[in-house]
């Protein structure tokens, strides 16, 4: 499956980056990957492999040292921490990205109100972030990201801080929301099941300096549920993914 660059939402060729220092610490080397428009892609890799740095580069927050990079219509970025503004009510937090992205206030509010129920936040429009549970805060941060008028969504371990049960619910829920929205998503995670459950394509990264060890297409039928994680097809993919992770760590 080779999508041409024209229809790719994200295309990287030979991207490399180092952290400043004496000597500089290489973080990413020769990163090449392509995410087709409208696809859900994940990046899986060991901690400290440069996943977050890659997302920050794609979000335009860090300028890479070299290589080619294309992000169609720029990207909305959701960092690991929910980073809600404590001084804004839930609804005002939800529309932040939209308003800063140029959507008129009234229109952004209307769109947010329509989605509060979908994001499991109905009735909490006027709550302060400090009054919400961890899962709700994360959903609110996701809502804010979805409302940001960008063609691509970059999600950095959105469920990393949640307990296992909530996390499973959120994964299935994210899938259903995405099936409605169908924007390109690039998700960073270290949870193998999460990547396979949600993605059309999974990229496996090596230890630092990170590079793509393997790219795996997941063509299981959607919507996928927890039970699908026990099917033979899923298990085969999981074994492949784990093997690739091991190769990446040994390198």
């Amino acid at each position, binding site marked *: 499956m080779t999508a041409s660059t024209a229809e790719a939402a994200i295309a990287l060729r030979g991207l490399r980056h180092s952290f400043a220092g004496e000597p500089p610490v290489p973080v990413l080397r020769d990163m090449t990957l392509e995410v087709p428009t409208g696809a859900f892609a994940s990046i899986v890799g060991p901690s400290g492999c440069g996943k977050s740095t890659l997302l920050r580069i794609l*979000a335009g*927050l860090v300028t890479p040292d070299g290589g080619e990079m294309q992000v169609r219509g720029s990207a*909305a*970025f959701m960092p690991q921490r929910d980073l809600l503004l*404590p001084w804004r009510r839930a609804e005002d937090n939800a529309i*932040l990205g939209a308003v*800063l992205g140029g959507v008129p206030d009234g229109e952004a509010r209307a769109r947010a109100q329509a989605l509060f129920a979908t994001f499991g936040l109905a009735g909490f429009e006027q709550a*302060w972030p400090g*009054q919400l549970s961890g899962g709700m805060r994360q959903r609110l941060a996701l809502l804010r990201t979805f409302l*940001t008028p960008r063609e691509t969504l970059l999600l950095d371990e959105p469920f990393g801080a949640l307990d296992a049960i909530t996390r499973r619910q959120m994964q299935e829920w994210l899938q259903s929301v995405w099936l409605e929205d169908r924007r390109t998503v690039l998700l960073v995670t270290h949870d193998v099941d999460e990547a396979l459950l949600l993605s059309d394509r999974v990229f496996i990264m090596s230890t630092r300096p990170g590079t793509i060890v393997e790219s795996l297409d997941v063509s299981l039928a959607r919507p996928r549920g927890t039970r699908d994680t026990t099917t033979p097809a899923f298990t085969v993919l999981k074994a492949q993914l784990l093997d690739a992770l091991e190769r990446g760590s040994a390198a």
Partner: protein
Amino acid sequence: MSRMFFDRYAAPGALLALLGVAWETCTRAFEVPPWILPAPSQIAQAAVLSGGTLPEHLRTTLIEAGVGLAIAASLGVAVALLMANSALARRVVYPLIVISQNVPLIVLAPLLVIWFGFGMLPKVLVVALVGFFPIAVGMTEALLRADPELIELVRSMGASRMQVLRTVRLPYALPAFFAGLRISASYAIFGAVIGEWVGASSGLGLFITRSQRAFRTDQVFVAVIVIAALSIALFYIVGFVARLAMPWQAATTEESS
């Protein structure tokens, strides 16, 4: 509930009453002359008797403190914004404002009277000068300390420098502003009185100087009590405004307590 009432009001009230009774008893038992230490009953009497002149002095001091505090707040915020936005301004202005705080008031206040006369202006300046410092310093630090990840996030959403300031830095610095304002407010009356004490045509400070010269120690105590009450009131008013301005803080602490 009654337990809370006791802790909050009854207990401190009882202690205060007990001290008053002890004070009254001692001055009477040892026949202390009123110009050395008047009894609480004599102070109360003086308060009633000075009811004619005191309100006018009170008004003057309140205006000086209020206007001075308003200038202190505006100036503090302006200086904080300047220092938070430029490292050069920080290097140049910081030493200056630290020096300004180290000129003793007993030196400065008479100078201001020489320069600006016996009216309200020199007192307003004393209040503003003493008051802007805690606001400027506290707010500068807070503006600079604002969560870098929050700033990065709104920048990734396309926020300009001005929008970053409005959406993240300023709200983040709001608690520091009010913390500074509380300190300034508790010094405001005191600052105005010092200014008046040096030379004035009206105000509580003048009332004190006149009373001292006449050995009316009971009136001095009346003024002291009024000043304390005003300072406490101002302190609580600032706290009240802070709660109105930062409703998320009250909402969040209620939840966790």
